[in-house]
């Protein structure tokens, strides 16, 4: 019995034994199960591809009717026979607000991650990490509400000060916008993406090999010098990909931005000022969801969504490549 079972395990045609009588039906189960899991995997690939295909296929007819250049125009009027719409202004608002968010959240997030891995006393570590994760659990609409009602009046004087004292600098030129400015959106987004930066950086910092850290300390490094020479170089790819993932999240954030954004009147002049308003891709789509009544209008908004999809796709792919390269390096 055992002699006949051994070769079958090596791939020879199985001899009919009593053991096969037990296992043959379930091998069929094996095949189904394998197929099901493979099918699930394939369906995920298909889903993402379909997202791209459908967005492109519905954006193209709308773009064909566009009377102005889609990439460089600031106009957005999608109704009627001669729609004129372009993304320049949304692109500027979206990327600027996201970059501001990143500039604030990445340094602070990295410091918080270092605090959690290196500085926090052991009793505080777990609680502190949970508290930071809680920030991610707050629904984004609550950030929007809080930003609009509570946080805005606090930031307002700071922006007034900037425009009074640094108004000669184009980025801080006064615009008379009292609602949510690009800078304010950036600050709120920074709070929202902070837990993402922290969680990923913390994970990478915690993986720093102990010999590296102990080696640095043994050579007389202070704690900060140890972090600078051992922890940070090891974690740099992780921090870069954390920043990219957070940027992706900031680019696509919808409802919080929709709550706090100040929509500019059509035809208002171009300004470089961060204290101006303007719509992001996501907020414009969300604000006009009620307008989706003709294929032409819908197509225009889908075209804007497609640009947003491409932006986040690129940013996330870069993050993925960076972290993959690190894996190859450490393994």
């Amino acid at each position, binding site marked *: 019995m055992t002699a006949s079972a051994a070769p079958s395990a090596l791939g020879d045609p199985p001899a009919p034994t009593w*053991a096969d009588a*037990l296992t043959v039906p*379930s091998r069929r*189960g094996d095949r189904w*199960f394998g197929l099901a*899991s*493979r*099918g*699930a*995997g*394939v*369906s*995920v*690939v298909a889903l*993402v591809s379909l*997202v791209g295909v*459908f*967005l492109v296929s*519905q954006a193209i007819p709308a773009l064909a009717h566009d009377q102005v250049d889609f990439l460089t125009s600031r106009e957005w009027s999608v109704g009627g026979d001669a729609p004129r719409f372009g993304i320049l202004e949304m692109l500027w608002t979206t990327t600027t607000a996201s970059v501001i968010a990143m500039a604030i959240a990445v340094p602070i997030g990295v*410091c*918080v991650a270092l*605090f959690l891995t290196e*500085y*926090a006393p052991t009793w505080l570590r777990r609680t*502190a990490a*949970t*508290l930071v994760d*809680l*920030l991610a*659990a*707050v*629904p*984004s*609409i*609550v950030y929007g509400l*809080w930003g609009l*009602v509570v946080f805005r009046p606090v930031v307002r004087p700071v922006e007034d000060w900037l425009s009074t004292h640094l108004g000669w600098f184009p980025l801080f030129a006064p615009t008379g916008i009292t609602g949510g400015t690009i800078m304010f959106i950036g600050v709120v987004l920074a709070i929202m993406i902070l837990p993402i930066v922290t969680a990923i950086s913390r994970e990478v910092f915690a993986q720093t090999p102990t010999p590296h850290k102990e080696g640095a*300390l*043994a050579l*007389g490094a*202070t*704690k*900060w010098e140890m972090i600078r020479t051992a922890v940070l170089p090891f974690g740099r790819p992780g921090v870069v990909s954390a920043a990219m993932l957070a940027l992706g*999240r900031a*680019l*696509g954030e*919808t*409802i919080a931005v929709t709550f706090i954004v100040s929509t500019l009147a059509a035809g208002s002049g171009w300004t470089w000022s961060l204290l101006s308003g303007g719509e992001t891709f*996501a907020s414009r789509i969300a604000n006009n*969801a009620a307008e*989706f009544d003709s*294929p032409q209008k*819908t197509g225009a908004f889908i075209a804007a*969504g497609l640009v*947003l*999809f491409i932006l*986040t796709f690129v*940013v*996330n792919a870069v993050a*993925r490549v960076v972290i993959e390269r690190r894996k190859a390096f450490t393994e």
Partner: protein
Amino acid sequence: MSATSAAETAQESRSTLARLTATRRAAYRADVVTDDPPQLTRGSATRRLTDQVARVVMWASFGLAMVPLVWILGTVVARGYELLLASSWWTTSQRNINAADVGGGAIHAIQGTLIEAAVTAAISVPLGIFTAIYLVEYGRGRLARAVSFMVDILSGVPSIVAALFVYAVWVTTFGFQRVGFAVCLSLVLLMIPVVVRSTEEMLKLVPNDLREGSYALGVPKWITITRIVLPTAFSGIVTGVMLGLARVMGETAPLLILGPYTKSIATNLFDGYLPTLPTMINQDRSEIGLASAMERMWATALTLILLVLLLNLIGRWAARRSTIAS
């Protein structure tokens, strides 16, 4: 006193020497012994100062990160708790309640949110778990890499894009109405990556000895997975599902595009209306000047946060009960 009592002049020099030695020894001890063990030398003043500054900066950033958390939670609780104390909040809907009326109920939105989350989970949990099983137990080569890459991309897809995609399929292509089920479909897109990633991590943690032991007993692969691997990783999978649900429940963008709000109870996902907590907040936004609307918004936000926190707590509790060390 005893040191100078007998022969003062003769012992003067010796006692000076002894005192000097003692002070040197004390200084040496202070230098070496009282320092932290790893720091045998104290380093230059600048280096020590930099180190201290870094320490302060780290603590300060943590404190800074806590400010918005405390601020937001504090505001939501302080401004929203009163409506939650009334039993009508949990038993009635907003039917016949105008923006200027105080209070009303949230049961329609709570129900809607729970139904939406349950249907989303029913679709995305099996799909996500099977995908994770494929990645860990079966996947080799190019397809596995493609699946893994796409899961990453999917986790970065903004909710508004997922909603637009479903709109393009459901409404534009198939010509259906905007209904709650379409919202669930777009939320599935957002939940799958969370489930896949957390399940994948947990399956990877299951020791290979268990699988090999099972194979050695002649147990087929699929029974090994369903009876040995999945139960071992169960609590971790629950954690992932709960965190995914928490994210999905707080989403608003797909609801704006695909799930019209109503003030009455609506439980049919194919009926055209899906009242949920996020859209209930959004509903009162246009009347934000009214104190009653504002209070209702905070109360709804508090209800939503409580729901999401509850799921998070269950998830963390499941994680702590995990049978495999993470």
